[in-house]
């Protein structure tokens, strides 16, 4: 091992190090891009209702916070039992299309839900929850709570929200990961969202 390290830290070895480090970074980025693009191209499509505001991330820039109707899940919808102990857990929710075109929660569970026709199952990010009572609502996130926009372009979306409806169309993979496809103001996409 140490002789291998010594070889790496001399002449041509440095080039090998460079290829390993840069290659590894490329691989990680490629994997993330591909996993996301595959949800976009193959996932099931759902439309969600939102209420945005406008802060900024240090590394990713301006974004619009997306707060969905489905971010608040009533405890009454939980099937398959509620864990008694306090802890970190994941919630699976079943979404069904309503008459107005938006999708809403019909069932939720702390265990994986079986697929059913005309419904889509969404998996939440791990969240910390205490004891739950029957009338409570659970705050959950799905990893689609931010829509990044070019610098200074968040305001018009915010204003559009005040005038009309802002909706988000989302693609969901078979394992329940969600991926934003587009942000719609009055039913029209504000930005093109290509696969790559």
């Amino acid at each position, binding site marked *: 091992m140490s002789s291998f*390290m010594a070889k*790496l*830290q*001399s*002449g*041509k070895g*440095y*080039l090998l*190090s*460079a*290829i*390993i*480090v*840069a290659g*590894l*970074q*490329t691989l*990680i*980025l490629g994997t*993330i*891009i591909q996993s*996301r693009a595959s949800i*976009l191209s193959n996932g099931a499509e759902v439309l969600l209702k939102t209420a945005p505001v406008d802060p900024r*991330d*240090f*590394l*990713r*820039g*301006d*974004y619009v916070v997306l707060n969905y109707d489905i971010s608040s899940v009533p405890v009454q919808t939980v099937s398959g039992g509620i864990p008694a102990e306090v802890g*970190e857990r994941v919630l699976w929710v079943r979404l069904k299309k309503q008459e107005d075109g938006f999708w809403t929660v019909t069932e939720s569970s702390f265990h994986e839900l079986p697929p059913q026709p005309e419904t889509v199952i969404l998996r939440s*990010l*791990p969240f*910390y929850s205490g004891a739950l009572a029957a009338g409570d609502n659970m705050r959950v*996130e*799905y*990893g*689609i*709570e*931010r*829509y*990044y*926009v*070019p*610098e200074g372009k968040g305001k018009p979306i915010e204003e559009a929200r005040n005038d009309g409806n802002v909706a988000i169309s989302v693609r969901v993979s078979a394992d329940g990961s969600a*991926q*934003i496809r587009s942000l719609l103001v009055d039913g029209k996409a504000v930005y093109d969202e*290509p696969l*790559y």
Partner: protein
Amino acid sequence: MYRGRLERDLSLWVGKGLLGQETAGALLAEYDSRPASFSLGRVLMALAAVLLAAAILLVVASNWEAIPRLVRVGGILALIWLVHIAAARMLARGATAAAGGLLVIGAMSFGGAISLVGQMYHLSGDEQTVMYLWFTIATISAILFRSGAVAVVAGFLSWASFAVYLENNDTHWIGFDPWMAPLMAVIVIGLVRYTGAERARHLAYLLLIGWLAWLYTLYEEIAVALAFAIGGMAAFVLTAVPLPRIASLIRSAGAAPAFYSFLVAVIGFLLLHIEIEDGWRLVVLGVATLAASVLAIALHGRDNGAVRYLAYATFAAEMLYLASVTVGSILGTSSLFLFSGLVVALVAWMVIRLERRFSANAQGERA
């Protein structure tokens, strides 16, 4: 700092005729040739790298529409490959400063690239995973290139990762993620030892101390403060114990282990003072704090300036505190100081006798 003192001492020795002018010049030249010593060019190179990396991160954050995002991803990937290969060539040629700068840009660009992907696909809630990935990449790069500059980047990323944890979890303890901060600190210390980036050591120790302080905010109890004081003093005494295996490990780590373990103990004593305000427990605590300061000076006072000054400061602050709160009555405080003064004087007398005997022995051996 050290160079200035070295130069003064050398000229003093030359003046006294203990050392030839040539030897003094050679000693100073040897110090200047060490890679860790200050070089303006090297520092400016590192600053340039940090500025360039920040520029890249900000271009990503601006989400600039003029460049299609696939071009942005391609551009940043090309940059990653370019800087790493250029760094490899620089290292092969022995230009370590330039290579360090390029590797810093490479490690920082990865953060930019992964943020760019997050931005492209509107990902949220993955900030912690991103920090883990980023830290891992920096660690691998620091090991493979044996680069001190990248070890420093890893040190700062460990802080950023802990900051992201605290922000995302409202400073609560949830799951196993809180353990990542001490784990990262250990990894950074490992990197420091391997790459020789001595000063980056403090990043790891400060992260550990910040983590401990956070623990106290979670459980504001006397037991935790007591654990800091006792644990800190125990670790501090351990750094002075002449066990061969531990001693060589600690000596190679310089002044830091003794100083930071004593600092944890002092923080523990400070927290205890906040919890305990009067009665016999305050007397015990006051005596324990004074004794800890005296012990610190006795064990590390000669060789470790940082420990010495922290111990002086603790001793002085404790004296002032006890005098201001008065233990029981003014007369009570006075008798406490009288008693403490006598004990310290006794210790001083014994230490002076021991030191005399040691120096007599040492001279006897030399003769």
